[in-house]
């Protein structure tokens, strides 16, 4: 059945999900999915492609910029455009890749081959989890960010990561993607070293297959929407498993530094039991550390996931917009920040022990506006020095309503991946959007830089990237990324459609 035609919404003010900034736009196009009775088909993908291409062509004719936008989850301005936004949230088709559609040269194991899934761009991380974790599929994501509201493409385009010690970031699940660049070009892109889909399947989609090298794929997979519309991705998945969470509150001792700064789990409270997921949340106003560890349990049998987020009728907690007021109060009364930080950590991090699928553990959260978050990644050997540098900054600025969440992620082959280090520690600076928080975010990269520590910053969170910092962080990868953009979108006028201030300010536009 044919898809409904895109519908224009003349709204002029776009705001991100957490309402930390607004952007003036020229309107929003709602894109709809064809009615599906038996699941997503190649014909559906072709129809959606044609709709995107027409809109891209129309925008170019009218001199407007465009961007596909999913859940608007980013705290940075990575997804913004001054022109038309394409609302992709309804594009939630998904399909399990048939064995006959897999390229004979696919180097994966039989298990990996049976765990390939295509998801359209509008599927949220929650959608992906729920689709994979059913009894019918019995699969799961290897890792996930803390939230599940981002679309799978929005999250991966900005480098969202979790803290699974033996895996990379969310984008490292992707092994193939469909990219729409202009009114008459669209590509199916894979790594040369990891062919996935059979050429006949790609031909049936009408896309041009690009897998002459690895660089092209590695450029597009983390590119903040700068290469065009990533309309679908193919993920490699894990057999379904459960996570058993064991949160605990401890003091920051020399023993604990061995775990935080070196992933040595022989110390208390781990006692040699290496977790699948590890995060240490340091409250810089005290020596309290919240340890979040999840242990993997394979073969969960017929476990029935329950994803519901229920607010007990008589419970009292922060309102949807509580943090906007708190930011002003905390700026005026800095003395209450330390006790507040303890309370905030409890709101930001679920400290109730539980067992569930990854989709349950990294599940729905109470929505909160005006959160503030930025992340800095460093190599594991620099972990302790970086944390101590940031704690010193905290002491210099004065109490700040923020905590430091230390997560660990393996290196990605993506050219501009946030996870650039063989084993990286990502310090997620989380809290309330306030004047002092913004001062901390502005000063943190300067301090880490002054300490002589190599670092990257999270593209989808508050960051202080400059062209110089991007060049220093990514070296030769930066030019490869720029070359890939020119290769896939040769005409400057076509590249300009997807340019925005965010990539201009970081030396990535043009």
């Amino acid at each position, binding site marked *: 059945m044919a898809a409904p035609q895109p519908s224009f919404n003349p*709204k002029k003010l776009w705001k991100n999900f957490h309402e930390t900034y607004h952007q003036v736009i020229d309107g929003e196009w709602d894109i709809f999915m064809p009615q599906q009775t038996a699941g997503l088909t190649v014909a559906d993908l072709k129809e959606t492609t044609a709709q995107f291409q027409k809109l891209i062509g129309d925008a170019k004719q009218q001199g407007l910029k465009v961007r596909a936008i999913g859940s608007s989850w980013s705290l940075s301005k990575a997804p913004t455009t001054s022109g038309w936004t394409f609302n992709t949230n309804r594009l939630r088709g998904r399909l399990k890749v*048939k*064995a006959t559609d897999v390229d004979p040269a696919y180097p994966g194991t039989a298990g990996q081959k049976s765990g390939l899934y295509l998801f359209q761009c509008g599927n949220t991380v929650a959608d992906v989890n729920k689709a994979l974790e059913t009894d019918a599929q019995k699969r799961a994501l290897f890792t996930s960010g803390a939230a599940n509201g981002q679309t799978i493409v929005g999250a991966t385009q900005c480098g969202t990561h979790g803290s699974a010690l033996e895996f990379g970031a969310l984008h490292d699940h992707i092994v193939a993607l469909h990219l729409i660049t202009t009114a008459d070009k669209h590509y199916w892109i894979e790594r040369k070293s990891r062919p996935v889909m059979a050429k006949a399947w790609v031909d049936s989609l009408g896309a041009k297959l690009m897998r002459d090298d690895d660089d092209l794929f590695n450029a597009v997979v983390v590119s903040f929407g700068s290469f065009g519309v990533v309309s679908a991705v193919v993920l490699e998945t894990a057999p379904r498993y459960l996570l058993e969470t064991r949160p605990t509150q401890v003091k920051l001792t020399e023993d604990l530094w061995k775990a935080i700064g070196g992933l040595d789990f022989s110390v208390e409270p781990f006692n040699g039991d290496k977790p699948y997921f590890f995060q240490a949340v340091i409250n810089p106003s005290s020596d309290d550390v919240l340890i979040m560890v999840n242990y993997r349990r394979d073969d969960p049998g017929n476990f029935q996931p329950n994803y519901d987020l229920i607010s007990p009728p008589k419970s009292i907690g922060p309102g949807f917009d509580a943090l906007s007021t708190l930011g002003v109060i905390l700026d005026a009364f800095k003395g209450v920040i330390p006790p507040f930080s303890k309370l905030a950590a409890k709101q930001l991090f679920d400290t109730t022990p539980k067992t569930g699928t990854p989709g349950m553990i990294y599940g729905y959260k109470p929505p909160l506006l005006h959160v503030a978050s930025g992340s800095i990644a460093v190599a594991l050997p620099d972990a302790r020095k970086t944390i101590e540098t940031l704690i010193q900054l905290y002491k210099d600025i004065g109490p700040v309503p923020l905590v430091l969440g230390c997560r660990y992620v393996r290196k990605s082959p993506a050219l501009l991946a946030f996870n650039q280090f063989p084993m990286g520690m990502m310090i997620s600076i989380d809290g309330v959007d306030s004047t002092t928080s913004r001062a901390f975010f502005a000063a943190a990269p300067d301090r880490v830089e002054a300490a002589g520590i190599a670092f990257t910053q999270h593209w989808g969170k508050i960051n202080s990237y400059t062209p110089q910092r991007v060049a220093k962080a990514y070296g030769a990868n930066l030019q490869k990324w720029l070359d890939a953009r020119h290769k896939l979108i040769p005409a400057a006028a076509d590249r300009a459609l997807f340019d925005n201030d965010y990539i201009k300010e970081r030396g990535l536009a043009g």
Partner: protein
Amino acid sequence: MLKRAIAALAMAATTSGCMQYLVQPPQPSLAGTSQTVQAKSYAGGKVQQPGFISAARCANGEQLARVLVKRNFAQGFVSWITLGMIAPATIEYSCANASEPPMGGGGD
């Protein structure tokens, strides 16, 4: 100290009269960004403008994923000064994705 007192007073003044209620299902599936509608309730809701809020952006059988009813300081002040006879509010709604799409493909 004066700065703090002013901040506290300003906070008290601008938040009293404000309110916000959010309604969402246990597993929200938003079909896009929120839509904003200005509304007024007269004489305790006996008259409303608009008569009811039509979630017009929810197309093709979509229901609602999220409704936020809020009142800022100015709206709260109007309500207070008119003893509730005029009660303006801002409604934000998000459409819900219509259903869970079936898994395509599979098999050989």
